[in-house]
């Protein structure tokens, strides 16, 4: 009745050098230098966590002003130029400096080595370098956004961005360009680590779905990010030297940019989403105390999403004057990419059948993820549908849809993961009551914010409008009211999470009785994770095996 059998964890004979009792990655060294020069993947994860949390609240502040401004049809709060800079800043920060990196660099960095039974990532120094590169990129872009701003929208459509915009286009793009390298480094690191450093017995088909999701994401990051880098360089070249690439006056094609941009920026949605799907699989199995339903199908659906995600980019251009044939092909492919997502939702639902569900905070977030992601996915079917896209393209229908996917989906999943592994990362439990309250507030606030936007979109309200016809006001006020609730929901965790560091009760190594190698170490984990290399003898999620009753 050692916990070893139940989780497939068997201590191997070879022992690491002894460490002081109670020593962990947080208390092994102190001081600024011990953080800024660390190569410990867990400490780098914390560096990312702090950086990204700050960026999230900056991006959120921009959203707050946007929603406040939209409470009146005449946009009395801020002038048009400021409004345009605000939604651009909101998009750029949230997409490139929060959603894309957040799960891989915080939870992925912390957990990938631990889940595969390794002591660190394959390239610990590159891992640290990626944080520096990311931070430099973020600072440059933030500086550009604050000192004058940029008003192109996060999509940088040409020839507006390459010729007409009189704002900080080049420095903003430079920051994004630089941070892209961090994305590639993280992806390469994860791929190398998962290929070469899995513990004995941890075959590919025994890997937790969180790892599969990160594998798929890493492949997308490595393949797609360079295309964005090229697209941004081309805009810069045209803007600075007047080389005709996108500007028709110079013989260029403005729509070419959209192809290049969306070739990256559609897969990027899956970079945001896949890790949260992985988290959901981990959390649901743990709190349903049951193995995942259809493991192999979920793995293949992740790979399917990663591959098909590259083949749907032109659905962003159904009304951009592309040929009818091209529209037909990309519509069909877009429907195809919806299938693997549907498979995941069905499997998560089936996992709950005959389970034993404990409604702890991470489970509430995960169920919120499933609900909101399902709604986001289903409304995506409307946009993939050529006849309907004709009407709702570039309206608030699209805004609502992708916020359901990227905020309702990706952020909800991240919150589930953060609450799930917080005790592992810090060794402390947060307030049970406040965290459940936050989950509820975020869910309700989110629905109230974005549901009215579907109606607004079908009514025809275009996106990026500083002023709008007065008949749209009631729905906009409803949306803004919801956003204020949502804001409370996002600020709340900041307080109880920080509070838990001082006053939270110790969590113990495995507060949720979860399987998975990361739970076999003390919380917080020792600097090198495992004193002995674990040997894996079973698949993940063996929550229903005989021995599980014996744990604790």
């Amino acid at each position, binding site marked *: 009745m050692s916990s070893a059998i139940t989780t497939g964890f068997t201590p191997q004979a070879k022992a690491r050098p002894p460490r002081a009792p109670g020593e962990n990655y947080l208390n092994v060294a102190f001081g600024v230098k011990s953080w800024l020069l660390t190569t410990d993947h867990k400490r780098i994860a914390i560096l990312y966590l702090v950086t990204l949390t700050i960026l999230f609240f900056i991006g959120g502040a921009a959203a707050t002003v946007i929603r406040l401004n939209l409470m009146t049809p005449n946009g009395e709060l801020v002038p048009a130029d400021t409004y345009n800079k605000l939604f651009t800043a909101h998009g750029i920060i949230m997409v490139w400096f929060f959603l894309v990196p957040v799960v891989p660099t915080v939870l992925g960095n912390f957990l990938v080595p631990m889940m595969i039974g390794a002591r660190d990532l394959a390239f610990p120094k590159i891992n640290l370098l990626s944080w520096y590169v990311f931070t430099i990129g973020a600072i440059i872009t933030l500086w550009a956004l604050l000192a004058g701003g940029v008003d192109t929208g996060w999509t940088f459509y040409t020839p507006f961005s390459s010729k007409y915009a009189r704002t900080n286009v080049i420095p903003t793009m430079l920051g994004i360009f630089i941070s892209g390298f961090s994305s590639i480094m993280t992806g390469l690191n994860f791929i190398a680590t998962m290929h070469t450093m899995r513990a004995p017995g941890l075959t590919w088909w025994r890997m937790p779905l969180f790892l599969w999701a990160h594998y798929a994401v890493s492949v997308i990051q490595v393949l797609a990010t360079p295309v964005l880098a090229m697209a941004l360089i081309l805009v810069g070249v045209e803007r600075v030297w007047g080389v005709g690439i996108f500007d028709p006056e110079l013989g260029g*094609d*403005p729509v070419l940019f959209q192809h290049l941009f969306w070739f990256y920026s559609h897969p990027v949605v899956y970079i945001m989403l896949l890790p949260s799907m992985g988290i959901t699989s981990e959390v649901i199995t743990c709190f349903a105390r049951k*193995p995942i339903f259809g493991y192999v199908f979920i793995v293949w659906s992740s790979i399917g999403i990663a591959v098909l995600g590259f083949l749907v980019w032109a659905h962003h251009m159904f009304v951009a004057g592309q040929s009818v044939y091209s529209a*037909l092909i990309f519509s069909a492919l877009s429907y195809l990419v*919806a299938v693997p997502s*549907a498979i995941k939702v069905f499997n998560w639902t089936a996992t709950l059948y005959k389970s034993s569900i404990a409604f702890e905070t991470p489970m509430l977030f995960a169920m919120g993820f499933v609900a909101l992601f399902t709604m986001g996915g289903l409304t995506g079917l409307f946009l993939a549908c050529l006849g309907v896209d004709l009407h709702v393209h570039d309206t608030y229908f699209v805004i609502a849809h992708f916020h359901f996917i990227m905020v309702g989906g990706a952020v909800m999943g991240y919150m589930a993961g953060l609450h799930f592994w917080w005790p592992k990362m810090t060794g402390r439990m947060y307030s049970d009551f406040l965290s459940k309250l936050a989950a509820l507030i975020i869910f309700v606030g989110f629905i109230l914010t974005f549901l009215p936007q579907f109606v607004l979109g079908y009514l025809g309200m275009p996106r990026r409008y500083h002023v709008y016809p007065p008949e749209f006001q009631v729905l906009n006020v409803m949306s803004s009211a919801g956003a204020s609730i949502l804001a409370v929901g996002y600020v709340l965790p900041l307080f109880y999470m920080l509070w838990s560091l001082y006053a939270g009760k110790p969590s113990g190594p495995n507060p949720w009785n979860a399987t998975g190698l990361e739970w076999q170490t003390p919380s917080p984990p020792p600097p090198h994770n495992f004193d002995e290399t674990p040997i894996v003898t079973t698949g993940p999620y063996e929550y229903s095996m005989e021995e599980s009753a014996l744990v604790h």
Partner: protein
Amino acid sequence: MFAEVPLFPEQASTTAQRVDALFFFLCTVCGTMAVLIAALVLYFAFKYHRRAEDERTPRILGNNRLEWFWTITPLFVFLIMFLWGASVYTSVALPPPDAMEIFVVGKQWMWKIQHPSGQREINELHIPVDQPIKLTLTSEDVIHNFSVPAFRTKIDVIPGRYVQIWFQPTKVGNYHLFCSQYCGTSHSNMVGTVIVMEREEYREWLASQAATGSLADQGRQLFLKFQCITCHSADAAARAPVLEGLYGRTVPLKDGRTVVADDAYLRESILYPEAKVVQGWEPIMPTFKGQVEEEDLIKLLAFIKSLKPGQTPVRNEEASPPLDAPKVPPGGNPKPRESVPTYRPQGKSTQP
């Protein structure tokens, strides 16, 4: 107050009814799917919530038959959605042959409209009800998007090329016209009104608008003003192809290719004459890029489109006829001049 809050947009075109039918179909299918999943999750959550700390669960790992069922079924449903959506989209792709053509030029931040009979308006589009309308659009600067929610249609208006949409309004009234593609500071003020009128009312409106001749007439003036006639003349000394009856024809090019003389080709040949040189002619034409504005291009095109055999102006005609020249009815054209030799095929001279 809430009684005045619209929750559904007005249906004012034949497209609107088709798009809405499809939309309701999607709502029904997706709504059913959502309710089904939600009901299952809630039922499981209620039925299987943990009652005792040491509760056990059966080790269910999956069911391949079930997996294939919920892989194939959505695929089938999606196929129906795709086909229906495609049929609506393709039906609005091609305008009917009897559609009335109106030209739209977008610029930061206004819509400039040119009617075939020469009337111009800004941020307003007057059209008759129950008449198919074909819009040909281009932009002077950045990408805009011409969108009329009540018609359920929109199109990106792209600089450097012509795009087209068509619709058939079914209901008299005033409808929003939005720019739906972000285009800079006053993007949200690049709005206007589409005014759908009874046919009779529309005719009265047209008559009340000042117009110095039809678009084709105005194009003819430009044809003389820019000295196009010097080379594109219909006499023996012509140094460039005659443009009579050119529109819609297949033109052989110097490099052996052929091209259909559509709007895009004519536009390109005026702005970038060397891009496609007609077989049998030398590339001697200078570029008119930077000299001809988008709106003037549209007039020139209208003139070339209207040019029937024998209608090319004589070379020494004064560039600017008096402003009070007799007004030509829409679609009508100046009488052919007897002195001018009639239609000659293109590519005559150096061709063996």
